[in-house]
């Protein structure tokens, strides 16, 4: 991990529907780091990572990406193209086949030729184990398969960081493993990842660092071994108690 952070959040605040969700978040994410975000529902985990690609525009605070301040203006689309995102509900384009889901943004946003985009898409589908389903439509796939396609779709933009927003929460338990395997592979290759998750085992095994979000602030942070095995605060102890 290099010294200069890839992402730097300073004093991030966000109010949604009259409720202050984020109450001043400062956070650095290093290049190649796998940062897991845990916390009870409503603690602001999703809002936090949605602020990074401005799906939620922060009310206060700044976001620097690769040393450059991100602004919600014309340059935003370019910023978003460098930040991959995977959603809880997959959000695959339902009218497009699997391979078309992967080639749309690279051709329209990055200007790749259809041939180049197709080549890239096929390599990624192979990697997530779905090379044989390129002509299927999202509704024909299982949840686990859809989520693997969604990861491949984000990777097709060759992003510098990947955001995972509770990507296994909508899956049947037996399908969770196949998605986590793909994410582990990405982590091994050195992808910078922000992972909002309830999968404590994943956080312990794959995460480099864990932050515990509680009431819109970072209540605890540190190495997974420390945060998950030796929690300091009562709230984190109680929260982790639900998973044992």
């Amino acid at each position: 991990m290099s010294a200069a952070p890839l992402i730097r959040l300073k004093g991030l605040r966000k109010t949604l529907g009259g409720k202050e969700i984020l109450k001043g978040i400062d956070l650095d994410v290093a290049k190649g780091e796998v940062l897991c975000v845990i916390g009870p529902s409503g603690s602001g985990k999703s809002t936090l990572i949605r602020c990074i690609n401005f799906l939620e525009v922060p009310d206060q605070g700044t976001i620097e990406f690769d040393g450059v301040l991100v602004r919600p203006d014309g340059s935003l689309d370019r910023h978003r193209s460098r930040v991959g995102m995977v959603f809880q509900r997959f959000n695959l384009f339902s009218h497009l086949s699997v391979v078309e889901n992967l080639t749309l943004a690279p051709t329209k946003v990055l200007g790749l030729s259809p041939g180049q985009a197709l080549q890239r898409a096929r390599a990624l589908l192979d990697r997530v184990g779905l090379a044989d389903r390129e002509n299927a439509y999202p509704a024909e796939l299982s949840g686990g398969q859809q989520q693997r396609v969604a990861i491949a779709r984000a990777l097709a933009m060759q992003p510098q960081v990947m955001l995972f927003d509770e990507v296994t929460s909508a899956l049947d338990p037996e399908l969770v493993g196949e998605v986590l395997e793909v994410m582990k592979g990405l982590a091994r290759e050195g992808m910078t990842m922000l992972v909002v998750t309830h999968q404590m085992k994943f956080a312990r095994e794959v995460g480099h660092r864990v932050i515990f979000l509680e009431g819109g602030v970072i209540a605890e942070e540190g190495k997974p071994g420390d945060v998950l095995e030796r929690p300091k605060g009562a709230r984190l102890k109680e929260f982790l108690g639900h998973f044992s």
Partner: protein
Amino acid sequence: MDLKPYLESLPSAIANTALLTVCSLAVGIVLGLVIGLARVSSIKPLRMAAAVYVEVVRAIPLFVQILYLYYGIGYLIRKIYIPSPFVSATAAFGLCYAAYIAEIFRAGFQSLDRGQSEAARALGLTRPQAMRWVLLPQAFRNILPALGNEGVALLKDTSLASVVTITELTQVGGQLTNRIYKPFEVWTVIALCYLALTLPLSWAVRKLEARLRVRGTSHTA
């Protein structure tokens, strides 16, 4: 039954009705899409202008709109341009149906899962790109049955164009009645002609719907 008067006048009457329907529907869909997009725009004045257009047009009978355009506006601009009855009627139908079709498009956009546009924007697609490549194709599939209904309704409404002397089916029905004095026979034939036009149209829309249906999804939209 003497077929000669019918054979002389019906083919061109059917053609005119069909042509009027197709041209008016094309205007209505293009304009309806534009107004529908304005209805869901992030720019407030645009949203309000579109809403006002829709409310005003829907509050005035189509029959009056046809007269207003042909006789009213036609009189006003007579020194610059004298529109043919066909152009005037097409404009009236198109402008009116655009209001209804705009509402269908609006509902189509609003019924889409928010996640679809978020996913598109998260990949770096601009708003227009997300609209063109993700939202519009999905909305269009969803509203196709409703658009088909508008097409059938429009075909029947073209009978109102007889008031501005277009020789479409209804106008020709009146002419035939005056010529051969067999009102029951004539109007039965005219009614059957409308039926012969609307049924294939409904059928064609259903075929198109089936073709655009996304595999793996149910056919209800």
